[in-house]
């Protein structure tokens, strides 16, 4: 304990250094991001012809198929090779790394895997180039996916993967009580009442989606904005939020679901603890596993999401491919985008990852249908899906929605009051 002896000076020095480091650590991010990087004001046409080596920035590829696709591209494209640059799993971290590398003008970062919810932010800040329409035809692509990559009538990313929510349900239980697949929440409730009364299984709950406070709550909960203007304090939205809140209170949705994201819900459904479950298509492969990890194998099916009064709408998910503003070799990037969005590549991607393709033709492809029998339902879900709000400040918008929905679902705020507050907040965020 010798360092106590010289006492005061050391202590002051240590204390102030420690305090300094706080500010340094916290300020470091601020300082690094200081470089003004608007670029929005420079409409100078980008050069889409230069060939050379580029990097494809995307989240972790768990399927192992992406390297194969890239190798194939590199074989047929000798004057510009693509390298895979994998980013963390977390969407927020991917977004941040992309933004940071735009700010330091990384010339290698060329093709970005742009989540649909980032489109507006990336386009408005000039992180990605607007794509020339003559080079990037969108024929044959789903309208919803084109829309998700468009900002102010310009295409900023090439539609690649899409996604829509599905209602997973226990076919065996519904058949046992000779019930129809519900299309509204009321029907679902009635079905659950019959099933839970008959089954007498305290572990079996009616329904769950993703209700933890994270970006997914935007997808699962409230519906926002029709004409780009925030419009949430409507009777329909209030009724929707009220229904979910009541279901939580009455136990139709298990209490623990307030801490669930996709994976927790999937496990509960697989363990046979849910009659109905809202989730993304990837769950299908897990629930259909025959190695004993799924107790509902062969006992479930999928349907379009139910709504409050009429068949429901999913929020649109997915990811598109953009070209980074500071990329040096945009010519190669253009070629790579076209290659990735080709029918052949998308098919292989779909079969390997279970991601929904952006090309409509693939939804009736026999191989895809054989592997993923739910494909027609998914197509329907995507075609009717609501795009999530196109906000430049998407982070603020999603947090505002999360605040409102999460508070209401926990019974801390009344649904109508929560939506009123949300409406006020959104009006300042989306102009």
């Amino acid at each position, binding site marked *: *304990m010798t*360092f*106590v*002896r010289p*006492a*005061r*000076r050391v*202590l002051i*020095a*240590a*204390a*102030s*250094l*420690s*305090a300094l*480091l*706080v*500010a*340094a650590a*916290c*300020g*470091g*991010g*601020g*300082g690094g*991001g*200081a470089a*003004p*990087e*608007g*670029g*929005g*004001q420079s*409409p100078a046409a980008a050069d889409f012809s230069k060939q050379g080596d580029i990097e494809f920035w995307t989240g972790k590829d768990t399927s192992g198929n992406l390297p194969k696709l890239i190798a194939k591209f590199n074989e047929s494209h000798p004057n510009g090779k693509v390298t895979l640059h994998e980013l963390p799993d977390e969407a*927020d971290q991917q*977004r941040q790394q992309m933004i940071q590398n735009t700010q330091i003008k990384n010339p290698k970062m060329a093709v970005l895997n742009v989540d649909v919810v980032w489109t*507006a932010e990336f*386009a*408005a*800040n*000039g992180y990605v180039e607007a794509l020339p329409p003559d080079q990037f035809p969108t024929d044959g692509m789903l309208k919803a996916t084109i829309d998700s990559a468009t*900002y*102010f009538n310009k295409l900023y990313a090439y539609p690649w993967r899409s996604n829509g929510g599905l209602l997973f349900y226990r076919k065996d239980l519904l058949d046992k009580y000779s019930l129809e697949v519900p299309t509204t929440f009321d029907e679902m409730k009635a079905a659950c009442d019959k099933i839970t009364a008959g089954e007498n299984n305290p572990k079996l709950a009616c329904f769950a989606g993703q209700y933890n*406070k*994270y970006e997914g709550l935007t997808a699962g909960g409230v519906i926002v904005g029709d004409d780009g203007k925030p419009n949430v304090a409507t009777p329909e939205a209030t009724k929707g939020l009220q229904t979910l809140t009541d279901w939580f209170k009455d136990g139709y949705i298990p*209490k*623990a679901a*307030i*801490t669930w994201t996709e994976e927790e819900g999937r496990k509960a459904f697989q363990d046979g603890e849910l009659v109905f479950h809202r989730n993304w298509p990837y769950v299908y492969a897990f629930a259909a596993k025959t190695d004993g990890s799924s107790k509902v194998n062969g006992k479930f099916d999928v349907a379009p999401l139910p709504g409050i009064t009429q068949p429901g709408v999913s929020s649109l998910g997915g990811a598109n491919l953009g070209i980074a503003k500071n990329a040096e070799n945009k010519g190669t990037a253009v070629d790579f985008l076209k290659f990735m969005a080709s029918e052949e590549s998308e098919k292989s991607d779909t079969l390997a990852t279970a991601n929904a393709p952006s090309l409509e033709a693939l939804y009736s492809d026999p191989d895809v249908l054989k592997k993923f029998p739910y494909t027609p339902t998914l197509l329907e879900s995507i075609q009717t899906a609501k795009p999530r709000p196109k906000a*430049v*400040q998407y*982070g*603020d918008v999603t*947090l505002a929605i*999360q*605040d409102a929905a999460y*508070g209401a679902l*926990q019974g801390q*705020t009344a649904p109508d009051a929560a939506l009123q507050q949300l409406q006020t907040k959104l009006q300042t965020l989306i*102009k």
Partner: protein
Amino acid sequence: MATATAEPRSVPATGDGHKHKKNALSDGQGRLAWILLAPTLIIIAVVAGIPVIMSIRESLFQTNTGVDPNTGLVAGGETFVGLQNFTSIFAGENPVQGNFGTMDRFWNAFLNTTFITIVCVILETLLGVAMALIMAKAFRGRGIVRAGILVPWAIPTIVSALMWKLIFDSSGVANRILGREILWLADTGASFWAIVIADTWKTAAFIGLLTLAGLQTIPAEVYEAAKVDGATTWQQFVRITLPMVKPTLVVAVLFRTLDTLRMFDLPYGMIGAGKYRVETLSVFVYQETTQSRYGPAAAYAIILFLYVLLVAFVFVRVLGADVIGDSGVPKKKKKKGDQEQAGPPGTALEMAGGAH
């Protein structure tokens, strides 16, 4: 600031030891010291000084977020806004609902940080001292106990955050043991306690370790003399152990306080972002930077910096004054103690009496 304290301390140090006046470098001693210190100073300036100055500059600016209504593009660049980033915390523009009712998000985070720190540090100090007392005892298997107590400290915080996340899961171990369904991770009052429990579990060992080192500097004769005088165990603890370990303990508590005020990984990794009941200032600052609001984020970071500095200053002034007074005395007594046996206990008790 760190540089300012570092120089004067080191420069005289070399001057003191210097005797040969006619050395070729004699006049350049000061310069030599500067040259030798330069690498350290440069590194401190680069990794701490420059970022801090940049943060201060950044805190006076705001990124332009206006959108052109025709093209939808953001103008970009930054505008000088003066102290607006600092004054806006009083405007209450961003009310959130937390443990302390509805208030501005900044103040909610500020109160969270403060209360988490107070509760955690008190619990950690109590537990840490208890651990140190156990570890200091000679008994069979002491090595295992010492190692066991230090295991939580050795685990990286983010790993322990994820570990506790599993424990506090709605169907996790904690709820199984309690036999109730408490939603620890759902931004409820329980989330606050989940953080406190996890942090205390992890860092009580730190206070324990430092206190143990302090305990081992207390000479055994002091206790022997106390026994001869008929002091009970409690009296020995309150009148001998505590006063003599106090200098060390204060430093340990100070370090823990400063550390807890900066807490980030535990709430972020365990409960998640945007959960206002456990959002600390560091988490809030991080959230602001991810929204590209670097100006306000830098301003909040600076406020946190000043807050930490203030707490450190209070510690050094109020408790630290004792550190110097106490630590000087026992050092002398300890040396004398070899010669005159009766010396130390008397003074130690006197000191304790004086302090109370």
